[in-house]
């Protein structure tokens, strides 16, 4: 078995334009971030942009900051709307980096002609969530552009949080050791397949519903009891669970083995995935996280997860091993194995 050759997007492909794949959360996004943004922006090594929320210090206070832009078609879907994503997504990025979310800012880019009633619904959702979670929206901006320049409504939110004294390590995951277990906080693929079904007119009975949810309460319950047992946390958004695992193993002497049998997927999601030829391991989630934790604490962490509605269906899905360093191996139901790579390109419905 030979070593994996990294994708070389800048070498042989057309690099003159941005393609949708550059935003899909897989290898192409990765290339863009590493090859362009991080290279140019990270002047100070202490201000490294981290994949979730980046650490920085002001007046001796350890803070975390994250920013995320939200574009989704359709804007309203089963289980939420773009406003739900804009609040939950940013708060989740702070929470999984071991921070206590403190404040949000938001920027709206609106298309001329966008219905005010829709905007009201979106803003109401955001206000309700921010109030419920105790994370105020403290600054905002609005721009309106000509019809056709954006698709209805785009939102950017930035979140600031205080780093927990005991949890600064969970973002990098460099304290993970062999034998640790990989936990997924709920069934995968609900959000991505809800969106794709809506776009293609599948799932007429609206059986599917996005998993978008704030994870902070659940995370803080876990960290209050098990801060040192939790070695890594990451929300499994674009690129799905497989991509999170692939990102973690990159350049490490350890690898991850996932057990196909243990991967939680709802029947309805599995069905639509089969029809469209899509692997749920790569489908986006908006309220699911991957936790790597000490095996001794795994059962307790699972039961904490299970005590929250958004952690229903949480399961141990794999272990950290050193047999295949830097690789994610999927052990199939039948005992055979295959490697998982990062999502490449966006997931498209296939016929064949």
């Amino acid at each position: 078995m030979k070593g994996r050759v990294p994708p070389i997007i800048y070498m042989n492909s057309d690099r003159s334009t941005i393609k949708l794949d550059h935003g899909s959360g897989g290898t192409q996004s990765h290339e863009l971030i590493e090859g362009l943004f991080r290279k140019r922006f990270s002047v100070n090594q202490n201000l490294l942009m981290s994949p979730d929320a980046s650490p920085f210090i002001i007046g001796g206070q350890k803070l975390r900051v994250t920013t995320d832009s939200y574009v989704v078609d359709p804007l309203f879907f089963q289980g939420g709307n773009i406003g739900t994503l804009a609040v939950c997504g940013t708060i989740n990025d702070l929470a999984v980096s071991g921070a206590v979310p403190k404040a949000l800012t938001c920027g709206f880019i609106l298309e001329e002609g966008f219905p005010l009633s829709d905007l009201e619904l979106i803003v109401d959702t955001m206000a309700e969530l921010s109030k419920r979670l105790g994370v105020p929206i403290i600054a905002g901006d609005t721009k309106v552009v000509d019809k056709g320049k954006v698709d209805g409504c785009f939102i950017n939110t930035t979140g600031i949080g205080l780093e927990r004294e005991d949890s600064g390590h969970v973002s990098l995951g460099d304290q993970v050791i062999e034998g640790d277990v990989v936990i997924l906080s709920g069934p995968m693929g609900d959000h991505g397949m809800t969106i794709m079904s809506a776009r293609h007119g599948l799932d007429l009975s609206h059986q599917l519903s996005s998993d978008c949810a704030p994870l902070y309460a659940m995370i803080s319950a876990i960290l209050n009891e098990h801060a040192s047992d939790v070695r890594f946390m990451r929300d499994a958004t674009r690129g799905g669970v497989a991509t999170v695992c692939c990102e973690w193993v990159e350049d490490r002497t350890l690898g991850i083995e996932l057990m196909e049998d243990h991967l939680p997927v709802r029947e309805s999601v599995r069905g639509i995935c089969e029809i469209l030829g899509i692997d749920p391991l790569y489908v986006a989630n908006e309220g699911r996280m991957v936790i790597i934790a000490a095996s001794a604490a795994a059962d307790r962490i699972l039961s904490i997860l299970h005590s929250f509605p958004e952690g229903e269906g949480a399961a141990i899905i794999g272990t950290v091993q050193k047999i295949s360093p830097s690789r994610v191996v999927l052990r199939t139901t039948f005992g055979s194995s295959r490697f998982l790579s990062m999502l490449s390109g966006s997931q498209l419905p296939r016929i064949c």
Partner: protein
Amino acid sequence: MKWIDEFRDKTIVKALVSEIKKISKTPIRLMEVCGGHTMAIHRFGIQQLLPSTIELLSGPGCPVCVTDQRYIDHAIALARHTDVIVATFGDLIRVPGSSSSLEKERSMGADVRIFVSPVDAVDVAKENPLKKVVFLGIGFETTTPTIAMSILQAYNEDVLNYYVLSAHKIMPPAMRAIIDENIRINGYICPGHVSSISGIGIYSEFPEKYGVSAVVSGFEPIDILQSILMSVHQLESNKPRVENQYNRFVQPQGNLVAQQIVSTVFSPIDTYWRGIGMIPLSGLSLNSTFAQHIAEQNIEVDIEPLKISSGCICGDILRGLKRPTDCPLFATVCSKENPVGACMVSNEGACAAYYLYEQ
């Protein structure tokens, strides 16, 4: 899921594997000619379960992989027309043409839309009367009737701005071409869903003329293993024949309604297969009744000169002569992110399956 999970039962998988191990003595090479089989074999890790006597090969069964580059160039030329909406299955969008791909054209403003069902594209044509909606008709026997239905619907409802660019293909001529090229195989794992439409009679020449086993197979792990077991039985007893493992969804005569609809709309023509070349009467073009829906005849385009990338051995891979890892471009110049050859583009192309799962 009913009628899926039953065929993924791991105790039955184990039993089939040990039965295969027990009776397989002579080394054999079995070729599947369906991308769905390629994917399933990799996804479920089936080759790993088999004894070393059985080698599985992937043949020209992925419609994306065998679609001629000239066709992609034609589709790209259409996409460059400002009054054209290119409608396609998701599979085709990243396939490289001579200098571009549909994805690249879309990033530069072309209207390229992905559909799950071709009849939805007819609706888009109705909603956009000033645009020409061109559906990229690819696929084998299974998909052709669904495209034929979209054409019939557009014809009956006078949707004059709905067109199809047809690259539909027929499976048996390619299976014959593989053998005629002296590619050594002992048996075919025949494509189940193609057979749901065509029936199983289309394979009779393979055992009769060529002494090759032909087992029509479903797509779940148990289906594939049972088909392999049937093939091993046939070959060990030296009695190759057509057998139907997938009888729950394949009737011997196939789907006569679908066959009737296809022959109403399409007629066989000679066509090019990427990597193989021209195969007589292996493609389908629209009958003259539906001339107004033929993209080639109604929309004038400027197709760029053909430029084939050198070093790519997709052709040999499609014919089962070489493995993806034999290609100098594999995982170096040609990757899933930047496919050079079609076998890397489609998830069910042999190279992509290797790249994603085995490498």
